[in-house]
């Protein structure tokens, strides 16, 4: 389980954690709460090259479908296969077992001004 204070957030409600040039991406607790029970998740193909803000996954709750955007540029290296059988992991463990995919970054020092820390995310993007 990751601590939100150690993560970066996008205003479209994705979080990411950075280990070297590999990022893990999920959606915030606030986002899963807004969506409600998640019943289906469409994840990108491994090896897919993604640019900043490409819609690369879809998280669907009973009521709505929501696009998930690539928070940085790179190549999809892993997807969370456990979500296929248990999509509600995104509800129950948004910062842990409910991670969505990992991206190997195109640059070791990407421009990340669009990403904010947890405090700023909470204050500016959560009602």
């Amino acid at each position, binding site marked *: 389980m990751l601590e939100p204070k150690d993560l970066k957030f996008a205003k479209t409600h994705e979080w990411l954690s950075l280990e070297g040039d590999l990022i893990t991406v999920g959606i915030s607790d606030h986002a899963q709460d807004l969506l*409600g029970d998640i019943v289906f998740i469409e994840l990108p193909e491994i090896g897919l090259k993604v640019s900043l803000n490409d819609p690369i996954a879809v998280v669907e709750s*009973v009521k709505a479908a929501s696009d998930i955007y690539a928070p940085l540029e790179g190549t999809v290296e892993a997807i969370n296969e456990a979500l296929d059988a248990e999509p509600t992991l995104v509800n129950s463990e948004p910062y842990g077992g409910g991670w969505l995919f990992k991206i190997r970054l195109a640059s070791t020092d990407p421009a990340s001004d669009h990403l904010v820390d947890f405090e700023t995310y909470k204050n500016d993007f959560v009602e």
Partner: protein
Amino acid sequence: MSHLSPLNDYHKELGACFTDFSGWQMPLHYGSILKEHMQVRESVGIFDISHMGSIFVSGAEAERWLSEVLANDACSLETLQAHYTFLLNSDGGVIDDLIIYRITDETFLLVPNASGVQAVAEHLTKHLPEAGVKLENRSGSVVSIAVQGKQSVDLVGSLWPETQSLKKNQLIAIEGSLDAIIIARTGYTGSEGFEIFTNIEQGRAIWQQLLSDPSAQYKCKPCGLGSRDTLRIEAGYPLYGHELNQSLTPIQAGLGFFVKNTLKSTLKEALPENLPRIAYYKILAKTPPPRGGYEIYEGETLIGSITSGCLSPMTGEGIGFALVNSKICLNDPEKYIILIRNKKYPLKFIKRGII
């Protein structure tokens, strides 16, 4: 400014997530649509349905007049019985679908959808005979509660033992301290259940009583409109605005069973071979939830689109209703395809409901 249910403060205390439904602020869920769905299928849940209309029709001529204006034959309805019916426009299109409860020989309660109350009340007022029928629209000042699930019989029976013997579509009127409490063995979830109608003060007390359950025997939980929708889709019940509207007749909606025979023949005669109609589908692959507007193809030909859908919380299958522009074959697993975000999945049409 939306209408608030007389139970709104209780919903807030229970942590409801609200939605606007036909101008009413009503609970969408109290935490989880899926859990509330399973609560009804496995034990018992209660829904606030006070947004639905309550129109009382009474008088010596009430029975005869209602048989004329409604699509089903009110004369065939015995006292303390309820049935499903429609109010139709002059082309046979559905103004609204409603349940009619015969409380006494000369008193009927009509329960239309929240979205239809105004249209139904206006239509009835316009066609009211000069004498012999009294129309009283009490919508908004009645508390209506649906108690649904297999344990509903025991839960409702623990409060009102006289409900134990009620069969499907039967009802009783119990004298409350202030006003009558009408309890009917009806519902719209496909599980066993009751619907309760009474005045605001008694209704508020009943809601709290159903949830308090001092013996903790039934663990009754509040359920919102989110699960009410997935439950009715599993059960194969239509929803006005999705499967029913002013330009579809009940025959096209596949609900001719609920139309009196004389009217049915007239409607059928007016129905050419290839008018659009409502059909029930099941997707034959693991897919995202089917949603309104998704297209259905027979081979390469577009034949219709989804009007309602969900992944069944019971089975995980994609199910629901579609509007198709011609006759379809039931149970053919190879003919039809649904397009979801540019991917094709096999689909078949089946008899309504999977529970």
